[in-house]
């Protein structure tokens, strides 16, 4: 079932809101589309990475002498081939990266900090030879004690990963190094007073495991460096300008020397916003003077590319008898992996964002551990903190005997609400979403045996950022659109629709591409749910620039003043006194006169997009729990979310459904499992259990449309919010189905069965795990 709930439809659209076939579709259903590993260059070498078998070890020496003389080996790089970098943070998606750490994540320097940490890379004439060369590299390790868990890593006697890391955000600064990179705090009002006023207070501790983005396409790159130092890179990435920036910085090359082309991307979800192989491939290619192709296998993806944080969360909420929340407090401890930079900050900002509260305090700790460095994963940080808060909200509603939707409506953020993290919300669609949930067929349907229903709300930001779009009017009146935010799930469809809408042409006349870094101005990456919002805004602006130019050309042709020309219904028309004196011209007509009226016509927009507006979602989940095995089946699921304006509703629904499915995996089965030596035990899709088709029901959607007033078409980013509510919604459903409330993810069958047995043993008393 797909529904739409509209609020004040302000304008009628011709193209926006329809469901045309995506312009890159035919290539993707015929196998023609070129993804990262599908590129090939004549004479290319195969690059492979040697990785640490230890979770934590000092690297006393690396001897490549035997590997270097193996026939077929053309280049080897180690830490000695990369200059050290100073500590400096730069934005990457919703997260920051520090070049001191980026260079160490690409190749270990002093220490190997996680199992899978790259130690050296080899380029050889075949994969077989490259693998043999890796075996011949001798690394002298001094194995050190390791720590995997954030709470453990915060203890005073924990092994310290970085001997120079002093906790930031604490006054006075600590004198001793620790694994806590920083402490952050958001405070609003007076929580002590708030809790004093509360009729009911619930305080709970939660634990979550790291989960991986799980994109089906492993990281892949082909790099070719010429003798003059100019470089070509083909890579699967969410941001090729970011790849260019990071590589130029790590290699000390001019940015202009590196041209990066983004391949089709086989899923990213935040995980392809950082560099792993790219600097290695470039360094190898420069040394070998041949193109180098590097592709991770699935095991490497799991061991060495970023999952999101596992975390420990403590939440305390106080409410009045009528359900009004009077105080909310949370402490979040997020694993960052080997280097600082967990998404604990957005986690803190999101924690209570769905609610209009007076008294809030959230404290976060960014904690390094001997795991792969986390990367962004769809709404990074938000799903973890909001899972905990929403679970406590559900428990309070239950204690007060309130309907969980009513409880949320009583506290819901709305236009003008001041968020605990600072800003006041503009028009937002949470109340509309909750009302839509209340009236949905799902919420009002009966439940079967051993089934329970849960609901949860969720919030995520939307970002703007640097964006460039170029729109060329071709000689025949068709249009070529160049954007620079890689298309992860229908962007080219939305952009061509927005261009067509604005220009009054058929959507099939607009052919969009994702341009390389030398063909278009700078673009920040696809992340923060920004690509439809930002590249869409730039597309509309580029189209408007083209319209303006079309008017100029017509006025020249007609020899009338520019202000005597208007654009209406997709045509330039003479206006005022001249109305009717000349035949109106569409873009096809304008294209024919472009040469003689001043030259080619290009609409261009290079902007920092502002006015991004957050999106709220509400999810309803039905779970059936087998009382004898603890196995949970999701029997029905509905996603309700504010899209501002759904440009291509099918791809908006797709975002809703895909986020929900990832959340279901997070809730029930996905987790990183380590052995006692800090080695990952499930680096494959067999035991890292993402949902398969038979695990899921159809996922119903209701698109709420509360337009974002700061986007020309009302668009909000929608991609990330859908992964925020599922864990709490499912936990609430499992509680009602099994009688047990769980405080740990994943809610895997052994935990659920043990929880139900404990309840039975207590004679039905409330048990917690």
């Amino acid at each position, binding site marked *: 079932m797909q529904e739409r709930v509209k609020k004040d439809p302000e304008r009628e659209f011709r193209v926006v809101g329809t469901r045309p076939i995506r312009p890159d579709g035919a290539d993707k259903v015929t196998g023609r589309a070129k993804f990262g590993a599908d590129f090939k260059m004549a004479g290319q070498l195969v690059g492979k990475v040697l990785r640490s078998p230890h979770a934590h070890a000092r690297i006393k020496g690396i001897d490549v002498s035997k590997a270097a003389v193996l026939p077929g080996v053309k280049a080897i790089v180690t830490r000695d081939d990369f200059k050290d970098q100073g500590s400096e943070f730069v934005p990457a998606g919703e997260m920051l990266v520090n070049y001191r750490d980026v260079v160490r994540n690409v190749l270990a320097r002093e220490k190997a900090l996680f199992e899978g940490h790259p130690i050296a890379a080899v380029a050889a004439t075949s994969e077989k030879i490259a693998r043999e060369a890796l075996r011949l590299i001798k690394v002298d390790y001094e194995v050190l004690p390791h720590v995997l868990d954030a709470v453990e890593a915060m203890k005073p006697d924990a092994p310290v990963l970085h001997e120079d890391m002093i906790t930031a955000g604490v006054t006075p600064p600590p004198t001793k190094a620790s694994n806590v990179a920083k402490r952050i705090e958001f405070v609003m009002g007076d929580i002590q007073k708030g809790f004093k006023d509360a009729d009911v207070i619930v305080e709970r501790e939660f634990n979550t495991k790291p989960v991986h983005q799980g994109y089906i396409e492993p990281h892949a790159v082909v790099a070719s460096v010429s003798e003059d130092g100019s470089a070509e890179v083909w890579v699967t990435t969410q941001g090729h300008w970011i790849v260019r920036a990071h590589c130029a910085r790590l290699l000390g090359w001019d940015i202009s020397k590196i041209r990066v082309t983004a391949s089709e991307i086989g899923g990213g979800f935040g995980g392809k916003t950082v560099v792993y192989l790219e600097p290695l491939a470039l360094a190898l290619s420069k040394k070998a003077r041949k193109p180098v192709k590097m592709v991770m*296998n699935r*095991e490497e993806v799991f061991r060495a590319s970023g999952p999101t944080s596992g975390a420990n969360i403590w939440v305390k909420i106080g409410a009045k008898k009528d359900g009004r929340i009077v105080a909310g407090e949370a402490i979040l401890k997020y694993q960052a992996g080997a280097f600082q930079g967990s998404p604990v900050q957005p986690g803190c900002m999101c924690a209570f964002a769905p609610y209009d509260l007076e008294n809030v305090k959230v404290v976060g700790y960014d904690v390094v551990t001997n795991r792969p460095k986390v990367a962004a994963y769809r709404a990074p940080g938000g799903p973890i903190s909001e899972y905990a808060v929403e679970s406590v909200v559900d428990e309070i509603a239950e204690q007060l005997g309130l309907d969980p939707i009513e409880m949320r409506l009583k506290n819901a953020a709305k236009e003008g609400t001041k968020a605990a993290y600072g800003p006041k919300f503009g028009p937002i669609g949470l109340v509309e979403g909750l009302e839509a949930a209340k009236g949905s067929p799902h919420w009002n349907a009966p439940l079967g045996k051993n089934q329970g229903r849960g609901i949860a709300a969720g919030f995520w930001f939307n970002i703007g950022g640097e964006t460039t779009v170029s729109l060329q009017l071709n000689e025949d009146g068709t249009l070529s659109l160049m954007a620079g935010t890689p298309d992860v799930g229908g962007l080219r469809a939305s952009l061509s629709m927005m261009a067509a809408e604005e220009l009054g042409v058929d959507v099939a006349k607009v052919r969009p591409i994702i341009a390389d870094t030398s063909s278009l101005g700078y673009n920040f990456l696809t992340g923060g749910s920004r690509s439809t919002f930002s590249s869409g805004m730039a597309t509309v602006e580029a189209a408007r620039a083209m319209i303006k130019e079309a008017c100029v050309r017509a006025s020249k042709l007609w020899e009338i003043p520019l202000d005597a020309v208007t654009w209406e219904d997709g045509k330039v028309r003479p206006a005022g006194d001249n109305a009717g004196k000349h035949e109106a011209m569409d873009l096809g007509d304008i294209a024919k006169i472009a040469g003689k009226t001043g030259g080619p016509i290009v609409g261009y927009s290079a902007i920092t997009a502002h006015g991004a507006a957050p999106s709220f979602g509400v999810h309803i989940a039905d779970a059936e729990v087998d009382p*004898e*095995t*603890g*196995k949970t*089946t999701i029997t029905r699921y509905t996603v309700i979310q504010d899209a501002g304006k759904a440009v291509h509703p099918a791809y908006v629904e797709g975002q809703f459904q895909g986020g929900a499915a990832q959340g279901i995996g997070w809730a*029930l*089965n996905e987790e990183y*499992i380590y052995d006692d030596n800090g080695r990952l*035990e*499930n680096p494959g*899709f*067999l*035991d890292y*259990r993402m*949902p*398969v088709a*038979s*695990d899921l029901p159809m996922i119903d959607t209701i698109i709420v449309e509360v337009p974002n007033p700061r986007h020309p078409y009302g668009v909000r980013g929608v991609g990330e919010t859908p992964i925020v509510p599922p864990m709490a919604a499912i936990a609430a459903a499992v509680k009602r189905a099994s009688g047990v409330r769980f405080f740990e993810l994943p809610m*895997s*069958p*052994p935990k659920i*069965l*043990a929880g139900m*047995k404990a309840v039975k043993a207590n004679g039905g008393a409330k048990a917690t795990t």
Partner: protein
Amino acid sequence: MRYEAPDTIDAAVKLLAGEAGLARVLAGGTDLLVQMRSDVVSPDLVVDIKKISELRQVKEEAGGFRVGAAVTGAELKEHAKLPKAWPGLVEAANLIGSTQVQGRATMGGNLCNGSPAADSVPGLIAAGATATLVGPNGRRDLKVEDIMLAPRKLALTKGEIVASFLLPARPARSSDAYLRFIPRTEMDIAVVGCGVSLTLDPSGTCTAARVSLGAVAARPLLVEDAAKAIIGTKLNHAALAKLEAAARAACKPIDDKRGTVEFRIDVAGVLARRAALIAQERARKA
């Protein structure tokens, strides 16, 4: 690595027996290729047995069936008679991996991969299947429960191949069932597996039964006490309770990434009961 694909079983045995390095048999390849790819094994010789017709056939024999060790799960399912006679065993073989994997994976490979969690092995053990082995010293028969000794350790000698399985003749009112527990609905390795085969008399009393458990010990188990619990009963409440208890008592599981000791023991009892009831229902109609 050498690849050979002989078309007689004797040639295959000769190749395997004569290899000085590491030799591996390739049937469906759904375990072997994964292990080769991840450097778990690096064989010097791979002998593909799929061109040996004896290993690729299902034949009726002695009132039962002789199933070639290299017959795929999908082929078992498509066989005209087998799914009706041995629905549990055919289901077990078709629980291994995806549709794609079922097009390749074989019961011989499933057994010889030497995993305690192999799905088709409890099915074969419950069925009372006998494996025919062919080696440098000729042919011999072994009960399937006597083949796997411990994880990755088999009772096979160097050069010996599992050629086929003999499924015995079925009395009237006999059937079987296999259930496994996995966290998802598909694509997982069994956390617990249980095969039950039984025969009813005209009054519905169970006259013969075999119960086998997988993934709860170092090797798949034939649990005679569990069978005894239901033989002579109509699988009433008390008999099923005894069956559950016997199944649980037989478990010697480990804690690992797929499940805990406690969970495996609990679920083994549940699956034994559920599988027995399914087998009973089927036997009534058989």
